[in-house]
């Protein structure tokens, strides 16, 4: 009762003050590809671009909102600052006099080896942090969701990495592919070694049986 009275007796509240002055927030994005058809054991890559044509920079964080169970989803990079001068690429915007820098983000998706063929989707959420240090304000935040669809086909004989069908030759993307490839090569190496050890053990057993029988 006292608490209720206290609440009611509160005369003033200071609500969401101290905004740092209004400035515009621009969040631009485009997905180069949002659909991939792969076979079980393969992986794929989606590429997105982000830009901010306004003068105020802000932080962007990408996280996987939804993906099939046990699928590997790697976002590279998953956190970065966005302003008109940051990014490896450029985008030509009709409303801007100059080309704006664009940040490329790659999303690598590796389905679980035991996933059944079918259509799956991965959803990535974009969160923005406007770096507004003032603690008392009602912030306006642009957000975005991206859904990538994967049509998973049956098993293949080899574990190839399927490139997205972007024909842009960039060293960076190639470098990142290399790193991803090397990751899967390591997996392949381990698999190969298992077979190798299995073969050695089998050989030893067979030789032992032959020696035993002859003796």
């Amino acid at each position, binding site marked *: 009762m006292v608490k209720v009275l*206290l*609440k*009611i007796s*509160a*005369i*003033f*509240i*200071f*609500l*969401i*003050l*101290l*905004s*740092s002055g*209004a*400035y*515009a*927030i*621009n*969040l*631009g*994005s*485009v997905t*180069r*590809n949002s659909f991939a058809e792969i076979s079980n054991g393969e992986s794929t890559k989606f590429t997105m*671009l982000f*830009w901010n*044509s*306004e003068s*105020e920079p802000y932080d962007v964080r990408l996280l996987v909102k939804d993906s099939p169970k046990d699928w590997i989803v790697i976002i590279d990079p998953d956190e970065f600052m966005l302003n008109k001068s940051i990014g*490896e*690429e*450029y*985008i*030509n*915007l*009709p*409303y801007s006099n100059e*080309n704006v820098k*664009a940040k490329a983000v790659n999303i690598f998706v590796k389905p679980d080896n035991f996933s059944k063929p079918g259509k799956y989707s991965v959803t990535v959420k974009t969160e923005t942090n*406007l770096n*507004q240090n003032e*603690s*008392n*304000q*009602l*912030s*306006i*935040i*642009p*957000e*975005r*969701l991206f*859904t990538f669809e994967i049509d998973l086909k049956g098993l293949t004989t080899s574990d190839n990495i399927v490139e997205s*069908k*972007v*024909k*842009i*030759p*960039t060293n960076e993307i190639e470098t990142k592919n290399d790193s991803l490839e090397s990751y899967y090569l390591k997996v392949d190496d381990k698999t190969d070694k298992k077979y190798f050890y299995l073969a050695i053990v089998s050989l030893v057993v067979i030789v032992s049986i032959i020696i035993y029988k002859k003796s």
Partner: protein
Amino acid sequence: MKIKAFSWKAFSFTQKIFFIVFFIFFMTLFSSDASAAPIYSLNSTNSTLAGTFVLHSLNWTDDVGLSGYIFSFDNCTGSLVNDSSWASFSGTWSNVTKIINSTVGCIIKWCVYANDTSDDWNSTSCNDPFSYTTSQLGYLEVNLTNPDASGILNAIQNLTFNINATVTCRNGTCGNVFGTAMYNLSSSPDTAISITEGDKPFYVQEDPANVEKTCGILNQGDSCQLNWTVNATGDVNTGWKIGVMFNSSYTGIQSNNTNSATISIIPCTQDFTLQWNSINFGLLNPSTGPNSAPGNSDNQYNITVNSGSCNLDFYIKGTNLVNTTLNSQIGIGNLTWSNNSNNYSESFNLSSNLNALKMNVTQGVCFTTWYWINVPPVYSGYYNGNIYIFGVENGKSPA
């Protein structure tokens, strides 16, 4: 009738003075040059390349009528020599072509005597003759200034982008220099961009459309920038190399290609701008409302779908306003919004779930939103929270 003989003595002194002044005035008037000599301007030469034909030009005007001229030429000999023949004007230009000395670095001088139909002559150009130094063949230094050759330029399909390139004539004269915008699929650009509207993957979208543009005559140290407005009509997700090839009217100068830039053609984007970043409701009393956001009256809370964007659907949601010190909250439902007018009765309650804010907004459209808050009975203090605005491609789910 008897006519008296003219007698100067018959006039008074005043009349004599008057006659004298009158006489001097008319003498001055009639003796003044009724036909001024021709006047020249716009002196030019079309080259300085040693051992080649060079055109020497002056433009002339005259108040009576141009008659002819005599060209005087010092071909690195140290003295001006008049042409043997007087040439009549055909038009207003005196154009004389001479093979200049083949020695690089010597000084050529020239001037023109011209007369009009009153036979008034202008020889002032020969008092201080025009001159230039013979030069060798230069080379073309080229640079692609836009797009940046070091990075990929993403061009939205069916929209234009600019190609800018500069050329500088170095180490001699370069003659007439031309630039051609080129493209290719993967290696160095080797195909001129089309000027036919709709052609793929690019066409020059100008009126008139020219893929080859001229810099005019470039002498040593002269620079020129050429620009093209190009529409990216190619298929989405295709990449192309573009650049500019410069060449000269002098066959001895090799054509030179700029570095090539990579163009990636992308689909329409998701691109919008929120014209504000926060709402400041100011000092409010509890148990009051609706309190209008201060920017409502000025229509400050605008959302723009930028050019090049796909049609977008907008959704809105929010979080409770929180004072962490007091552990007190104002439910997000106390905030309302409208996309229709600055009228509270038309507003909707904000929610922690996404609600449609505006659907199918086309590129270039700016729409206004308005906000209100009803303050419940809560502790005094500062409260903060977030409003999230989602923009998704028309027809796609926001969640």
